[in-house]
């Protein structure tokens, strides 16, 4: 009886041991995964396709990676659990994941529970991820409006009608797409003072002279100071629907200026809108009065300070030499 018990215990140990050895198998190679997922018709019991296009994956930017590099939980046991975790892009792309995590998109998805809010794969794709320099990539510059427009269809419709989309289509280098103003991963709310003020600087990265002239105005100075109660670029020009002033539909066209200025200055009239929101005192063609005022003060200020500066200096020198009551 004792011997039989001992044999039983030994057998139990062996079985248990081999079972333990079986629970940490070597991670499956991509071919192992493709044994199931390579079949184009393979589906989960609930009918959702689980096929992976091996050719697309091999040519993708992640082609050299193993399946388990992203789907770590698929390598721990076989067969793997029905529900795997979302690929952890952040385990490699730590910096980008951090930015995304603080973004409006992550907030909508993770905190507000908005099912349509995007995570990495929604913009970058899954097994077909291509470099942003690759023309087929969803995040290739020219394709970005379409990628964002998958959700923000109404915005892209306006954008497509505007000058910036026209410039992109025309092939203008660095013509802005969504991410140039809104950022890529660190997308924030657009109704905060911080964003409204920062986007002016963004306009200035291309329109440097225009922003410099804007900075000469009351609007420009108040916004530069960090207060956003006054007009910045988008308040007059629009955001997505920016049109050239020559276009009658533009917010800054002659036909619409009274209406546009009137949104902040109720009662603004035809005379009011003769205001130059982008003055340049050294450009005579933009306004003779400004040019003359500039000339006048360029003589008056150095003249006054020069004369009285010298007057004071000489006075000091003379009294120091001759005594205070000389």
């Amino acid at each position, binding site marked *: 009886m004792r011997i039989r018990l001992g044999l039983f215990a030994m057998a139990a140990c062996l079985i248990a041991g081999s079972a333990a050895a079986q629970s940490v198998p070597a991670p499956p190679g991509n071919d192992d995964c493709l044994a199931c997922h390579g079949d184009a018709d393979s589906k989960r019991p609930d009918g959702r396709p689980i096929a992976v296009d091996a050719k697309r994956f091999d040519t993708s930017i992640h082609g050299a990676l193993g399946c388990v590099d992203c789907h770590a939980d698929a390598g721990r046991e076989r067969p793997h659990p029905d529900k795997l975790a979302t690929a952890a892009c952040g385990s490699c792309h730590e910096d980008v994941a951090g930015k995304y995590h603080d973004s409006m998109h992550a907030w909508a998805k993770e905190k507000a529970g908005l099912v349509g809010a995007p995570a990495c794969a929604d913009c970058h794709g899954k097994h077909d991820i291509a470099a942003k320099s690759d023309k087929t990539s969803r995040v290739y510059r020219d394709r970005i409006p379409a990628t964002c427009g998958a959700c923000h269809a109404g915005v892209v419709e306006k954008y497509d009608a505007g000058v910036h989309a026209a410039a992109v289509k025309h092939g203008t280098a660095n013509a802005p797409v969504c991410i140039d103003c809104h950022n890529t991963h660190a997308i924030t709310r657009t109704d905060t003072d911080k964003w409204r003020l920062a986007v002016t600087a963004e306009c200035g990265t291309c329109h440097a002279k225009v922003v410099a002239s804007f*900075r*000469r*105005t*009351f609007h*420009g*100075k*108040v916004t*530069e*100071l*960090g*207060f956003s*109660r006054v007009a910045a670029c988008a308040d007059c020009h629009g955001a997505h629907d920016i049109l050239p002033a020559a276009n009658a539909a533009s917010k800054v066209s002659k036909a619409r200026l009274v209406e546009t200025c009137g949104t902040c*200055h*109720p*009662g*603004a*009239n035809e*005379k*009011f*809108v*003769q*205001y*130059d929101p982008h*003055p340049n*005192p050294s450009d005579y063609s933009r*306004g003779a*009065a*400004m040019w003359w*005022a*500039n000339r006048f*003060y360029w003589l*008056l*200020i150095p003249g*006054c*300070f020069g004369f*009285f*500066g010298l*007057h*004071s200096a*000489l*006075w*000091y*020198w*003379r*009294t*120091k*030499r001759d*005594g*205070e*009551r*000389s």
Partner: protein
Amino acid sequence: MTSATLQPPVPGAPAAAAPDTAALPPAIIDDHAHVARFDRPTRLLHVVVMTTFLGLSATGMPLLFSDAWWARLLATLFGGFHGAGLVHRTFGAVLLAAVAGHVGHVLYRTFVRREKGLLWGPTSMVPQPKDAVDLYMQLKWFAGRGPRPRIEHFAYWEKFDYWAVLWGTALMGAAGLVLWFPVAASRVLPGWMFNVALFVHGAEASLAIGFIFVVHFFNGHLRPGKFPMDMAIFTGSVATGELRDERAAEFARLSRTGAIDALRVPPPTAAALRRGRIVGTLGLTLGIALILLIFYAVAGGLAL
């Protein structure tokens, strides 16, 4: 207390003042006796202009130098753009009212009360031919080629300050009102006048701030002989000896006509002096602090 107010007259020092002073009995040149110089409305006007000017500078500079590191800090001190704007417009309205009141007062005294000497003459603020001569003599004195000019009631540099404030307030006030009420202004003015108004407001402000906090401070208060400040504008009177040395022509005229007797006042009380020193020190300190911020911003701008 400046040396001029305490020390007995230096024998034989000012060659230019000698002929007038030598003929006068010593009692008149008593440094402890004072002569009235600024009446109460004038002193009040100076304090109002000084206070509002400092307030307007401090609340306007954040916009004028909006790219300076201290700009936002200074604006935040007044409750941000909104608060600073409110303070700026309030001070602006007070300054405009004060200057308008002053002009009205001068016109009233001249045309209703028929006072003489306000619009022309030795005691007038209006530049006289003598001012050109004084300037020429002053420059010659700087060069060591002559005596100091014998100054009358107001020196040419004081008249310049006065007219600069009057002209500056009128111009900046007008421009400020256009910027304050642009829609109302646009009923009569074209919109590009807003551009001109902002430019002129800023340029004139640079001129005024620089002029007051450097030139006026030096000429009126900080120069040797006055340092650290001239108390006359705060106490209202000037020591007889100081008047004789600083304004030889006025002293001679007052002595000759005997008008000086009517102007004799007791020296300012210790309390009046203390009050004046506190107000003056505050003004000078704040003004110099503001001008240093501007120097910092301008130097930074030049370095970039």
